[in-house]
């Protein structure tokens, strides 16, 4: 895309006419430029040669984002309040915190996350790239939270003012903790943006869904346990640009069994790989301009595909691994690409989560798919590989353009290598205390008797514009008003015959009842926060609306599509 843009610019600057180009032999009579580099705005992601400046792969080590340290509430400047603290500069919160009585500062973790200009180094061969990162790292700090212990995050906007910033992105974020069971006012609604110099407090209770149900109080339903979440900007119209600018962070929820300690002697502890063996892998494809700085094509309205693959903020890094098990938490941070990840040696992996939800039972897989915003945790065992082995995580998803991936997969030999694992016997530990249990939590029951309403949402595109049920997004319209404490059937239909959508629904995970009218396969049953709809597909989901009131949005997770108003609003009412 960048080369296409340069070419477009250069053609114009050179003042060449079509006739001139024909005479020069640069243009054929059908209008195609003869160069393989292509001038098409759409050709870039289509599998042609890379357009970003080339970089040497596997020369930089995978960065692992720091785990944020909770701060003393006294050091936050002003004490968090239930109401909106306008006098201290709090903005963008639509309502007082719900369930404030469940927050006790002495038994909560407090974080200050600053959104600030950060010079990111995507590769040592590229210049520093001005980005907007949480606390100055890409990805932002990992927040390690635990079910049952509230977290209060003060998101402070230290970005340059609207009148100062030039370039893609709007410095007015609203940060969404994606996949959490959180109140509307702490969920980063796209309209709840904050100006530079202001802040917003998010109260994340970290209770499982159902915690206000007397039968499930006080902790909620253990079967609604959450794991790998992430936080990112959700600013109306600019979320793709702002996430691309660097607004990505990780929020990992632990629990009584997933304790984050592989040596935990408790008989109920699962002892999944932990500590340095619990590694996030944030996948983000990117384009760089000829000067090596991040490039976002503001005039590609279909979806942005990068030709450069970064993991945790580095282009094609390496990671030295010991001969033992690792838990990798893969996240597709967008903006528009879908991944299908294999290991280059076709080694099996054990998938333990999907969309931040534990599977009922671990699943042995040879690959995992990630649409934008998806997370998958896999356990990979390197113990049988000789020291010195090198293997790769490879994206085999074939995606010609922003419309979505094709149904074909590349072979791992032909795929895009994302990260190199170097098996290093020098790192070996004495044994491997980590384990993968046989099962996690059963799925919560789907009770048809609880269903209050069935709704259908048809996603479509006509004349270049996106719509849901024939209507573009309107912030003044509430498309659905489920009642708190009820369940509903939500059907999602992709009416387009050309575009694929991934649709994210916040507040609670759903369960799929039917795909295109057919019950899902038994081993495909899971809790999810999104559905992936190929052209013409439909899905029937069961979801509950518990514990919180307020407005939420459901949107297409290709962030470019959702910025073009592929979105609708709904509100949980008493």
């Amino acid at each position, binding site marked *: 895309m960048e080369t296409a*843009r340069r*070419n*477009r610019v*250069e*053609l*114009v*600057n*050179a003042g060449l*006419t*079509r006739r*001139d180009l024909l005479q*020069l*032999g*640069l243009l054929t009579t059908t*209008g*195609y*430029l*003869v*160069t393989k*580099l*292509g*001038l*098409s*705005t*759409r*050709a870039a992601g*289509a*599998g042609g040669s890379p357009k970003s400046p080339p970089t040497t792969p596997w020369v930089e080590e995978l960065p692992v984002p720091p785990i944020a340290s909770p701060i003393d509430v006294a050091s936050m400047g002003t004490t968090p309040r239930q109401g909106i603290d306008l006098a201290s500069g709090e903005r963008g919160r639509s309502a007082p915190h719900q369930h404030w009585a469940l927050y006790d500062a002495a038994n909560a973790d407090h974080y200050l996350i600053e959104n600030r200009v950060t010079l990111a180094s995507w590769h040592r061969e590229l210049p520093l790239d001005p980005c907007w990162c949480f606390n100055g790292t890409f990805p932002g700090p990992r927040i390690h939270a635990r079910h049952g212990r509230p977290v209060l995050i003060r998101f402070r906007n230290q970005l340059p003012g609207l009148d100062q910033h*030039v370039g*893609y992105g709007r410095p007015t974020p609203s940060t969404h903790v994606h996949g959490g069971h959180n109140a509307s006012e702490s969920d980063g609604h796209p309209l709840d943006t904050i100006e530079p110099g202001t802040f917003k407090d998010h109260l994340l209770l970290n209770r499982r869904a159902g915690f206000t149900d007397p039968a499930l109080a006080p902790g909620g339903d253990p079967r609604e346990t959450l794991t790998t979440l992430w936080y990112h900007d959700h600013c109306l*119209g*600019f979320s793709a640009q702002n996430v691309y600018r660097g607004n990505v962070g990780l929020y990992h929820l632990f629990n009584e069994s997933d304790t984050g300690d592989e040596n935990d002697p408790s008989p109920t502890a699962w002892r999944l790989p932990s500590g340095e063996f619990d590694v996030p892998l944030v996948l983000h494809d990117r384009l760089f*301009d000829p000067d090596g*700085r991040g490039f976002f094509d503001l*005039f590609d*309205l*279909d979806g942005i595909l990068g030709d450069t693959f970064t993991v945790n903020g580095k282009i094609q890094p390496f990671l030295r691994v010991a001969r033992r098990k690792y838990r990798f938490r893969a996240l597709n941070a967008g903006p528009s690409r879908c991944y*299908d990840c294999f290991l280059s040696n076709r080694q099996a992996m054990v*998938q333990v989560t999907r969309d931040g939800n534990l599977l009922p039972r671990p*699943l042995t897989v040879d*690959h995992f*798919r990630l649409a934008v915003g*998806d997370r998958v945790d896999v356990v990979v065992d390197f113990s049988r590989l000789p020291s010195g082995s090198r293997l790769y995580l490879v994206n085999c998803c074939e995606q*010609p*353009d922003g419309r979505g991936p094709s149904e*074909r*997969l*590349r072979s791992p030999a032909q795929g895009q290598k994302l990260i190199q694992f170097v098996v290093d016997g020098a790192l070996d530990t004495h044994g491997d205390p980590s384990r993968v249990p046989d099962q996690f939590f059963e799925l919560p029951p789907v009770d048809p008797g609880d269903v209050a309403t069935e709704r259908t949402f048809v996603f479509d595109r006509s*004349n*270049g*514009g996106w719509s849901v049920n024939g209507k573009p*997004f309107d*912030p*003044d319209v509430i498309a659905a008003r489920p009642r708190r404490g009820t369940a509903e059937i939500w059907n999602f239909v992709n009416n387009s015959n050309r575009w694929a959508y991934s649709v994210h629904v916040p507040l609670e995970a759903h369960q799929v009842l039917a795909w295109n009218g057919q019950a*899902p396969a038994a081993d*495909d049953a899971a809790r999810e926060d*999104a559905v*992936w709809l190929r052209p013409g597909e439909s*899905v029937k989901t069961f979801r509950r609306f518990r514990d919180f009131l307020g407005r939420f949005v459901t949107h297409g997770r290709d962030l470019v599509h959702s910025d*073009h108003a592929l979105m609708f609003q709904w509100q949980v009412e008493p």
Partner: protein
Amino acid sequence: MSRARGKVTKAEVEAAAASGTRDSAPASAISRRRWLALLGLLPLAAATVPVLEFLDRRRRPGTQRPIGGFHRGYFPNPVLRTHDDERVRLYDDLLRGKTVLIHFFYSDCKDALCTLATENLVQLQRLLGERCGRDVFMYSFTLAPDQDTPARLRNHRDAHRIGPGWTFLTGTASDLELCRVRFGFTDPDPGLDREKAQHTNVLLLGNEPHERWLASPAAASPRFLLSQLDRVAGVKV
């Protein structure tokens, strides 16, 4: 995401190479001096990009395009004609330093969405009031420049009782095509890309000096469009 575990029995190899371009060449005049430069470079013509890069450097010695920039240098500057038959340059006169709304249409489009878009924009213009033409500039580019003469655009404008600050634009087919592609009003499907009505339901809202751009369905409510324009302009919303 469901069905994350789709089974692969036989992985297939990479698809055929990228399809070609729909980008069109600009149609401005070429100077004798540049011709000479071009003639001198003919042996290198097969290597398109180096030639063009070389030309670019020759044309503006010592200047650099803004890094990743979307202003001067990105936008072409063809001469277009307004509904009043005035000659205007795309970048110099219409975009530079302005907050703008970009709309593509053609006057005899019978598509209901196209009609709705125009009605929406009429209401948006009313909501903008005197800001339209002062702080915000609305532009409708024709997708049928051969039919949409300045006089016809003027009639179309009068029929919708459109006030000042909203300019309708025509010109040569190649210039209008260049505008369409440069603003991204394209479809990855070549067949649909050729259908004019496919490009009538999207608006582009842009703040040129700040390079702040976003797209919106033209069918969105005028109030929402106004708030989106404010977001682009940098007004607090």
